[in-house]
């Protein structure tokens, strides 16, 4: 039981893990061995990716020409499990025999790089090309295995525009076309030499065009022609299908073609030799060969805009000649069960630009795009293809419900008219159902199943239906006033604090200054405490009164003059006062007198008169005032 449970959990984990979007990238070839110039179909498959994917760029495979032929995508959900995959198709055309290992192809998915596994290919010689292979191995000083890895120092190609014995013409089948209409660019080589085509030294400048290259023929078509009285061998060496993206006047620079020729043209037998040999070989082992660059003249192309008259509303720029078919997988269905419509559009034209026909908003259905596959092929000199769209319709109501006709419009350049194709109208018999269909969570989270919000129109936002309370403005005013008041208070406090701090620093450096500055306040605070003693008739209190007066005077003068309080005698006091005020100063005499009074009264047993007490206080006050003026 436990094992079963564990297995189930593991299975579900794997399934859910896959459902949660594990990306798997693989590459495969339809065969591992082929002959030179055969076609090998390479497929890169990406599973579990979300969002849009760019076609991976193949690295240059030495010995192969590569062509991208299309992509297909598939999303399916069955019984709550979903899977999605996208396949990119390529054609590889081997150019030489040998054993090759195509290294892993790097594919970017959702910001991460994935690398496919290597693919081993074995390319054998073409029987018809044995003589060429032998010639090649004889021409190259390399190992007998005929390895193509030897690096040969080739002489620089010679550009000889004046040589009328060899030239290349680049021609287009039409000079005035519509946007997205195919124009065939053909390179024809005219030569009177023993010539070998080496490829493009400089690719053609075709910006503004979508390009499809035709793979080279196994047997190059050639014919003898007369041009200007001279006989040439004419061979078509390359064809490109170009699709202009916008209406404009274009000038196509065809690029530069590299060929190698035998040094001197032969007058008569050259043509026989060319009839017998492949065009891509030439000369024996001892022939002296020269590389040449041939540059055809530029080509003017006029792309005219589509005619505005008769343009259908759903026309999106597709050009060609197409046919469309549509089918649904079932006509009777339960409510909330999916019905899949398959739309196929096939024909000549740039199939990659085909869009799915617009589906109007349908109240009776929920509509989802499920699958898109495109397949490109060449039909003669025309690019053609087929694009398949799968659309899921989920009826939300019961009854006989119609999927309306869908239209697809394109422009036929041959007829120079717009054509509109229609799918048939489908009638579904929808029976009521109690169970509600729900998209699996993994799919419902995928962007492709989500509808875009479309703004139908714009207008101003509605009025406010409630007045905000006035408190907010009252709050601002109150807060500003309150904080302003607090700031004023704090500023004053700061001033006081700074002043106090400054004083403390001064006093810390000069204690005598502290004593001098605080002497008066200290004396006055002690004097205030004497009031009760002044009016007392108790002799003891009187004694204390004078005692205090004496101490206040002594303390004050000690602070002011920087003297020690302890043990200050009358002599010390007299000397200090004499030094400050002079011996004849009346205040000096009064202070001395006060000092004497205090000394005597301290020990007097009889009651001291109030007038004496007041006199003592008066002298003390005057002393303080006088000293304050002279000694700060």
């Amino acid at each position, binding site marked *: 039981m436990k094992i079963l449970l564990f297995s189930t959990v593991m299975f579900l984990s794997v399934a859910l893990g896959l459902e949660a979007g594990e990306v798997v990238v693989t590459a495969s070839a339809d065969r591992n061995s082929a002959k030179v110039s055969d076609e090998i179909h390479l497929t890169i498959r990406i599973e579990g990716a979300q969002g849009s994917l760019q076609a991976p760029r193949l690295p240059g495979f030495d010995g192969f020409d590569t062509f991208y032929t299309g992509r297909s995508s598939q999303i399916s959900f069955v019984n709550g499990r979903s899977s999605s995959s996208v396949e990119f198709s390529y054609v590889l055309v081997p150019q030489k025999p040998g054993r090759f290992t195509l290294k892993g192809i790097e594919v970017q998915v959702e910001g991460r790089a994935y690398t496919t596994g290597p693919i081993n290919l074995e390319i054998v010689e073409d029987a018809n090309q044995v003589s060429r292979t032998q010639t090649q191995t004889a021409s190259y000083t390399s190992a007998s295995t005929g390895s193509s890895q030897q690096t040969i120092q080739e002489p620089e190609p010679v550009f000889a525009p004046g040589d009328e014995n060899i030239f290349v013409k680049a021609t287009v089948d039409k000079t005035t076309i519509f946007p997205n209409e195919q124009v065939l660019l053909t390179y024809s080589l005219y030569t009177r030499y023993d010539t070998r085509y080496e490829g493009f030294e400089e690719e053609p400048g075709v910006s503004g065009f979508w390009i499809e290259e035709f793979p080279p023929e196994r047997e190059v078509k050639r014919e003898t022609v007369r041009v200007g009285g001279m006989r040439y061998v004419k061979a078509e060496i390359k064809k490109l299908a170009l699709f202009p993206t916008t209406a404009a006047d274009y000038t196509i620079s065809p690029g530069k073609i590299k060929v190698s020729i035998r040094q001197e043209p032969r007058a008569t037998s050259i043509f026989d030799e060319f009839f017998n040999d492949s065009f891509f070989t030439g000369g024996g082992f001892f022939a002296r060969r020269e590389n040449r660059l041939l540059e055809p003249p530029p080509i003017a192309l006029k792309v005219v805009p589509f005619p505005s008259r008769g343009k259908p509303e759903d026309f999106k720029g597709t050009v060609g000649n197409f046919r469309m078919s549509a089918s649904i997988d079932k006509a009777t269905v339960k409510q909330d069960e999916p019905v899949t419509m398959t739309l196929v559009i096939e024909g000549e034209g740039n199939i990659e630009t085909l869009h799915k026909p617009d589906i109007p908003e349908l109240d009776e259905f929920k509509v989802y795009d499920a699958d898109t596959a495109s397949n490109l092929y060449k039909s003669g000199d025309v690019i053609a293809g087929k694009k398949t769209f799968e659309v899921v319709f989920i009826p939300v109501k019961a009854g006989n419900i119609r999927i309306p006709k869908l239209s697809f419009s394109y422009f036929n350049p041959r007829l120079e008219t717009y054509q509109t194709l229609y799918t048939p109208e489908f009638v579904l018999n929808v029976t009521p159902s109690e169970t509600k269909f729900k998209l699996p969570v993994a799919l419902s989270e995928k962007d492709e199943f989500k509808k875009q919000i479309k703004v139908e129109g714009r207008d101003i*936002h509605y*009025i406010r239906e409630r*007045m*905000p309370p006035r408190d907010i403005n009252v709050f601002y*005013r109150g807060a500003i006033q309150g904080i302003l008041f607090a*700031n004023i208070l*704090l500023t004053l*406090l*700061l001033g006081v604090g700074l002043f106090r701090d400054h004083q403390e620093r001064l006093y810390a450096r000069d204690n005598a200054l502290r004593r001098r500055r605080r002497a008066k306040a200290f004396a006055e605070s002690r004097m205030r405490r004497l009031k009760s003693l002044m009016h007392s008739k108790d002799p003891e209190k009187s004694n204390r009164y004078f005692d205090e007066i004496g101490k206040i005077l002594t303390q004050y003068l000690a602070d002011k003059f920087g003297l020690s309080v302890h043990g200050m005698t009358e002599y010390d006091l007299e000397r200090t006062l004499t030094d400050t005020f002079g011996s004849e100063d009346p205040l000096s005499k009064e202070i001395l007198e006060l000092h004497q009074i205090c000394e005597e009264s301290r020990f007097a047993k009889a009651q001291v008169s109030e007038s004496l007490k007041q006199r003592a206080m008066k002298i003390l006050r005057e002393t303080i005032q006088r000293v304050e003026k002279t000694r700060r």
Partner: protein
Amino acid sequence: MKSCLNFKKVVLGGVVMMLVMQAGFVWAAEAMSSFDEANQSYRDGNYEEAARLYTRTLEENPDSGNLYYNLGNAYFRLNKLGLAILNYEKALHRSPRDADIRYNLNYARGLLEYKVEDKRNWYMKAVEAFLQYFRWEEVILGTLISYLLVVGSWVFVLFFANGLPWGWGRKALIVLFLISLIFLGAKNIERNMMRDAIVLEKNVSVHYGPSSADQVAFQMGEGLKVYVMDRREKWSRILLASGESGWVPSSQISEVVG
């Protein structure tokens, strides 16, 4: 005797306060009913009446962003773009972060016949955009609060700890205060010196001088935002964001603040 007098004062004070509050309630109730009436007129499609009622309510409640917003909507429905934009701007001054006001203002501007290319430097535009997100009162409040923090921390340390406060925290507060001062200065310039105004007339001729006899420099349309640089009698010197300037009759524009 004293306690008797005190009691009378308290009772009198209480009565006065109640009367004032009552008046306040009555006023508030009246303002509410005026506002509701105006809204009802708007809902009924009677935009002229709605505009009149909003304007009347604004006389007693001049600080309400909502009122200016609704008034702007009423003018918009009446196809008076200049007045609509003016009132949206006034609403924005009072509620600078209101998304509805911004949306309607931008939408109305998008319908203007004329377009003025903003050729100011990027930092000027950035500063103006930043300043517009705050009310004048908020900027003052921010400055006062940052000052309070700076001085408060200093006072606290002076009275409860020894030595002058000069740690990194207080330095940061000083920097904050200085920034808020700069902000306050910039907002003051924006508010009082670069006085923005809206063109109210459909077509306005801007002259090289403060007289209709002076040559016309260029034409402007309703709803455009201008900055009033100077005033002379009945003329105002205006500046556009594109750098163009000239004189227009003051009656053809209306300042947003004031």
